[in-house]
C-alpha cells in the first residue's frame, strides 16, 4: 500500500500538481457554493482543460474539484437554506438553524472540517482497499470483466434517482451511444450515417458537457430570478471549528466510514450516505443535542459522510474500472482519455499513477481544511453573484472547453444535441448519470463479451461455467428480481 504512495510521490509532488490542487479546491468550493451547480459541473467544465495538462496534474485538479465541490454545497445550505448540491441536502437540517442562531461561522467551519476529515478517513480506506480489490480482479478474464461491467451498469441504473426502468433505459441509451464509431474488431463504421466526424464515436466530453452543463443552463434559465442577490450576514475567518470538531471525533469517523462504504457501492451516492449518517448520528446522540434545531453533530455527520463517499466511490473506479457515481464516471473517462485504463492494469503497470492519484486525493482534503476556513468571507461574496452573470459565462466555458478538445465545431453540435436530450430526460425525471456510465462501460462490456464468446466458440455458457462470472451474474439477477418486486409491490398495496 505504502509502496504505491512512494512511487506516486515524485509524480504528485511537483509545483504544477500542488498548484492545480489548490486551484481545484478553490474552483470546486466556488462551484459547490453556487446553487444548481456542483462537483460534477466543475469536473465537466474543467475536463477540456485537463486534456492539455500532464496526467497527474490533470487528475489532481479534477479530484480537487470533486472534493471541494462536494464540500462547498454545505455553505449555501447553511447560509441560504438552499443546498448548493444535492449532497448537502441533509446539512440543511441543522446547518441552517445553527446559522439562524448567529453561529454561521461555526456551522461552516464544522462542515468544512468534517468534510475534510471524512475525506481523509475515506482516503485511508481507499489506499488500503483499492490495491486489494485490484489484486483480486487479476483473476478476471473476459467473461468476468463483461459480467462486472454489466453489474456496475445495472447497479447504477437501478440505484440512481428516479425509477429503475428509467435508470436502465438511460443506461441502455449510453450503451447504444457507445457503439457509434468504428468497430474495434472489424473496423466497420457503425451508425455513423456516413459522417466522418462520427468515425471515432461522439466525443465523450461533448456528450457530458451537453447532458449536464447545457441542460442545466436551460433549466436555470427557465427558473428565472436572474438578478437576485441574497442577503448574507458578514463572515469572518474563524478557527474555532478545530476545537469543536474534537467533541465529535467518533461521529466523524463513523460517518466517514459509512459514507465510504456506501460510496463504494456503485450508484449509492453522497446524498444517500449523508441522510443515512444523519439518521445514525441522531439515533446515537444524547438528549441535549437537539437534532433538527441546530445540532453540531448533524452538520458533522452529513458532511463527513458525503465527502467520505468521494473516497469510497473512487475504490471501484480505480480498482475495477466501475465508476461509483456520475462524477467518478467522468473522472474515469478523463483517465481513459489521458491514456490510462483503471482496473488491475493501472496498479500493475502504472503504480506510480495510482499512487499519484491517491496522493492527489489526500492532498485535496488537506488543502480543503485550510482554504475552506480561510476563504469563508469570499464564499459569502460568491453567493451574491447574480445568475445573469453566471449563466452566459458557464455557456461560454462549456462551449470553448468542448471546442478546445479537438478544435472541432462538430463537437459543439454534439454538445447541443445532448443538451437537448438531457433537458428532455431531466424534465421526464430520468437519471443522467447512467448514460455516461453506459458510454464508459459500453466498450468494456462489448469487447469482453465478444472476446468471451470467441474463447467459448460462441457458447454463452462460458459466463455461467466460470465461478466468478457466474457469481457476479447471479448478484445482477438477484438485483433485477429485487427491483422488479419493489417496483410492483407498492402499487399493489396502494
Amino acid at each position: 500500500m505504502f509502496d504505491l504512495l512512494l512511487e506516486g510521490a515524485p509524480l504528485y509532488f511537483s509545483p504544477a500538481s500542488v498548484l492545480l490542487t489548490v486551484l481545484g479546491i478553490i474552483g470546486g468550493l466556488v462551484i459547490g457554493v453556487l446553487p444548481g451547480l456542483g462537483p460534477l459541473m466543475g469536473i465537466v467544465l474543467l475536463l477540456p482543460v485537463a486534456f492539455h495538462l500532464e496526467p497527474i496534474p490533470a487528475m489532481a485538479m479534477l479530484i480537487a474539484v470533486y472534493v471541494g465541490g462536494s464540500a462547498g454545497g454545505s455553505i449555501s445550505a447553511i447560509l441560504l437554506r438552499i443546498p448548493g448540491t444535492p449532497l448537502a441536502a441533509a446539512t440543511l437540517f441543522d446547518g441552517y438553524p445553527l446559522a439562524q442562531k448567529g453561529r454561521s461561522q461555526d456551522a461552516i467551519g464544522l462542515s468544512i472540517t468534517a468534510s475534510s476529515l471524512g475525506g481523509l478517513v475515506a482516503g485511508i480506506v481507499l489506499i488500503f482497499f483499492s490495491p486489494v480489490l485490484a489484486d483480486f480482479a487479476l483473476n478476471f478474464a473476459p467473461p468476468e470483466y463483461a459480467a462486472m461491467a454489466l453489474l456496475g451498469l445495472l447497479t447504477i441504473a437501478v440505484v440512481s434517482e428516479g425509477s429503475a426502468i428509467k435508470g436502465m433505459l438511460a443506461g441502455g441509451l449510453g450503451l447504444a451511444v457507445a457503439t457509434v464509431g468504428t468497430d474495434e474488431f472489424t473496423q466497420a463504421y457503425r451508425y455513423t450515417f456516413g459522417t466522418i466526424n462520427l468515425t471515432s464515436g461522439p466525443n465523450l466530453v461533448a456528450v457530458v458537457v451537453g447532458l449536464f452543463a447545457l441542460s442545466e443552463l436551460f433549466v436555470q434559465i427557465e427558473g428565472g430570478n436572474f438578478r437576485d442577490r441574497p442577503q448574507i450576514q458578514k463572515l469572518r475567518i474563524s478557527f474555532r471549528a478545530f476545537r469543536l470538531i474534537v467533541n465529535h471525533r467518533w461521529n466523524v469517523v463513523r460517518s466517514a466510514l459509512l459514507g465510504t462504504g456506501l460510496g463504494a457501492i456503485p450508484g449509492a451516492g453522497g446524498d444517500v450516505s449523508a441522510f443515512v449518517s444523519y439518521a445514525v448520528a441522531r439515533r446515537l446522540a444524547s438528549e441535549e443535542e437537539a437534532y433538527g434545531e441546530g445540532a453540531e453533530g448533524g452538520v458533522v455527520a452529513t458532511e463527513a459522510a458525503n465527502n467520505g463517499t468521494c473516497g469510497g466511490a473512487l475504490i471501484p473506479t480505480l480498482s475495477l474500472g466501475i465508476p461509483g457515481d456520475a462524477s467518478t464516471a467522468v473522472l474515469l473517462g478523463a483517465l481513459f482519455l489521458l491514456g490510462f485504463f483503471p482496473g488491475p492494469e493501472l496498479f500493475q503497470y502504472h503504480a506510480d499513477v495510482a499512487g499519484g492519484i491517491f496522493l492527489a486525493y489526500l492532498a485535496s482534503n488537506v488543502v480543503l481544511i485550510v482554504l475552506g476556513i480561510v476563504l469563508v468571507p469570499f464564499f459569502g461574496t460568491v453567493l451574491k453573484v447574480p445568475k445573469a452573470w453566471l449563466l452566459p459565462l458557464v455557456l461560454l466555458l462549456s462551449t470553448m472547453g468542448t471546442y478546445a478538445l479537438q478544435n472541432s465545431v462538430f463537437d459543439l453540435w454534439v454538445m447541443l444535441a445532448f443538451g437537448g436530450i438531457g433537458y428532455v430526460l431531466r424534465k421526464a425525471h430520468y437519471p443522467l448519470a447512467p448514460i455516461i456510465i453506459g458510454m464508459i462501460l459500453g466498450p468494456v462490456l462489448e469487447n469482453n463479451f465478444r472476446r468471451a464468446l470467441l474463447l467459448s466458440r460462441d457458447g454463452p455458457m462460458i459466463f455461467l461455467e466460470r465461478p466468478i462470472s457466474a457469481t457476479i451474474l447471479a448478484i445482477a439477477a438477484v438485483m433485477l428480481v429485487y427491483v422488479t418486486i419493489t417496483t410492483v409491490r407498492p402499487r399493489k398495496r396502494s
Partner: protein
Amino acid sequence: MKLREHAYDWLAWLLIGAVPLLIFWQNATSLTEQSVASGGPMSNAAAYPAIIAWILLGLTAINALRILAGRISQHSPLDPTPTTRLALIATVLFVAYLLCLGWLGYYIATPVLLTLLFAMLGLGPIASLAGAVAATLIVAAVFEGLLNVVLPLGIFNFTLFG
C-alpha cells in the same frame, strides 16, 4: 389524459424508442453492406448492438405501459414558466452562434452572443457589453495563451493571444 400530464415522459419515450429502430435499420442496411452483420463474435459487429436494441425495445414497451397505466408517480407536463421563452431564445441565439462561429471567428461571434445573453437576462447595455468583452478576452487568454488552443479564426483570420 395521460398524454398531457406525462408529455415529457412521452417525449423521452419517443427519443429512446427511436434508438433501437435506428440500430435495426442500420444493421439491415449499412452493416449488412459492409458484411459485418453476421458470423461469429469477431466478424459480427451488429450482434451486440442488436442485443442492446432488443433490451431497449423491451424496456420502452414496459415504460409505455407504465405511463398509460398511470404507474409513473411524477408528472412531466409541458408547463412553460414565465422565462421558458427566454430559454428558447437563448437556444436559438446559441444555434445562430454555432452557425456563425466558423465564419465570423471567436472574437466577433462570442462578444455578440454574450452581450445579447447578458442583456436578455436583465443586465444593462453597458454592463452587458463590458462583461461580454471582458469574458471573451479572459477565456481567449486562458485557451489561446495558456493552453495553446487555436480558437476559430473566421474570415478575418484574427487572433489576439495565439
